[in-house]
């Protein structure tokens, strides 16, 4: 049974791939909605790495970190989407580069 289980480095590989895809999305997209989605993917990828490591040791800590990441993601999305609404209202566009005038 033990040798038949999922190898840890494969799970981590999936996690790394997901992270890099998310990062790529973060860099190439200009729409703020997509940027937020990419962030979700990256957070999820790191959560996967935590779960895998926690499972490897058979300890609950990995899942606890997952929950903390979950709450960070929830808070981030709530604020981020609020910002999206404000950006849309103010610039009439969701293009990140339209909002790059810096003030103050």
């Amino acid at each position, binding site marked *: 049974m033990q040798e038949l289980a999922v190898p840890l480095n494969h799970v981590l590989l999936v996690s790394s791939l997901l992270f890099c895809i998310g*990062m790529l999305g*973060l*860099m*190439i997209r*200009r729409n703020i909605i997509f*940027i937020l989605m990419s962030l979700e993917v990256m957070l999820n990828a790191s959560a996967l790495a935590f779960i895998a490591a926690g499972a490897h040791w058979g300890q609950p800590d990995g899942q606890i970190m997952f929950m903390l990441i979950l709450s960070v993601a929830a808070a981030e999305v709530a604020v981020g989407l609020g910002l999206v609404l404000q950006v849309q209202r103010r610039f009439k566009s969701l293009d*990140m*580069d339209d909002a*790059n*005038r*810096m003030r103050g």
Partner: protein
Amino acid sequence: MRDYIWLIPLLPLISSITLMIAAPRLTHKIITLLGVGSVGMAAVATCALAIEFVGNPNPIEIVLWTWIHVADLAPRIAFYVDGLTLVMMSVITGVGFLIHLFSSEFMEHDASYARYFAYLNMFVAAMLVLVLADNLLLLYLGWEGVGVCSYLLVGFWYQNSANGHAARKAFIVTRIGDTAMAVGLLLLFTELGTLDIQSMISSANSEWEIGDNLPTIACLLLLAGAAGKSAQLPLHTWLPDAMAGPTPVSALIHAATMVTAGVYLIARTHGLFLLSPSAMTAVAVLGLATSLMAAFTALVQTDIKRILAYSTISQIGYMFLALGVGAWTAGIFHLMTHAFFKALLFLGSGAIIHCLHHEHNIFKMGGLRRRMPVTFWSFMIGSAALAALPMTSGFFSKDQILLQAYQLASIGPWLWLGGLLGALLTAVYSFRLVFIVFFGAVNTEPDREIGWRMAVPLTLLCTLSLVGGYFSLPLTNVFPTVDAGHPAHWVEVISVAVPLLGVLLAYGLFLGRQLKLQPWMEGQIGQAIRQFWFSGWGVDQLYNSLLVQPYSILAGMLKGEPIDRLYNAIVRLNQTLHQWLSVTQTGRMRWYIASMVFGLIFTLGIAFNVAPGAI
């Protein structure tokens, strides 16, 4: 009353805080009632306490609470009342009340009437804490408290920058003594492990021998503190300048109470001083030197308040002389009588200044005898007591000091001679003041005679100055009894005769003009000495060139901030770097992300190479 001793300092404190907070909402009448009434009530309470104390003259100890508790240090907020405390309290509240009453007329038209009483009440509270304190730390609290109030009141008319300067000078010069005293307290604490005065003295007596070095050092440090507060050499320069404050303040703080705190400190810790004969000698010699120096200076001053200020320095010098020769009771007795007659003189001068449009120069006064009879008689009695003419209070106290000084072994007769010279000078300068101000031609017409709130305190203080010598102070349990053997009869006769001679001399010099000083004074040497004395023996100039000027020069050198140049260079470097880096701040999110990713890659790459095993 014993259980309510804490009320006595609390009453003026409450009044002071009320006046500070609520002054704009209070009417003139209520401010007066609060300011004067609170001290009056404290005086009544002190009186009740005194009556009770006479019936049962054991020291009273009241512990209120523990102030701080750090390791071995656990000073309490505790009051200790014995005969000495009671004398001081009576002076503070009694004379203080009369001066408050006087102030209510003197300051009547001042814009900051409430502020004045707030400070003055605060002073009374702090001074009471000082004398009531059971340990030296609490005493130090009161000590600093009165220092602050003195500073605030000297600079009371702060719109004039000279007053502010005088206030700062008073504060800073006393601070030098206070620092020495703080060092002394620390030394006593580390050596004896307690700051409670009574237990400290008893453990000092069991641990130290007479003539040890440690008690001498500790006593000299305490003496430095006392000299700073009591304006003794070499820290006396602040007191003449402190006359910038309102005159009742000079009467209360700079004559009757605060400046005698040094005397009280030494008397309170006399158990320590007895362990160190050399420190005692230092106290006596310092006192005598100050006394003579100030008396010579007072001879030639022209500002009425400065004359009185130097006379105060001189009289406190007498008290130090008394303490130094072991005449504890006589010293405290002189403290009390001095509080009466010096407060009287200051209030009298305040009355003159009040009625003469703030004129301070005695040569612009003159002939006031008939214009201001109450003030004239106050001044007469005050000066008689100051000059220690027979039957006045000053006579009894000064006589005791001189006689006990004479009985001291070895240097005693020399101290006695010096004291006699001082007494002669005192008589001359005090009656010079009286003759110039009240006799002769009228130079400035007073615009009024004083009202009852000024006259009543003057009258009461006159009475006290006359009969104060018959008081017997409850000090027998406080101080070691001195063997009061009678010296030779001629010593007493001379002690009595010298002040009379001084008055005659003053009459001859300044009123009758039988003695012609004029040609001698006009001469070069006469002028030089006169100028030297006038400037207070050049001490101010000496300090100026010795301390103030070098400091100014150093400050001038540092004004360009030489060390800051280094920091400024760093600042400029950072500014340049900032300008370079701010080019990269474009506001384009994706560039930021890309640079973060690049940084991540770079850092991971370095980590591979530097510490492959750590990952």
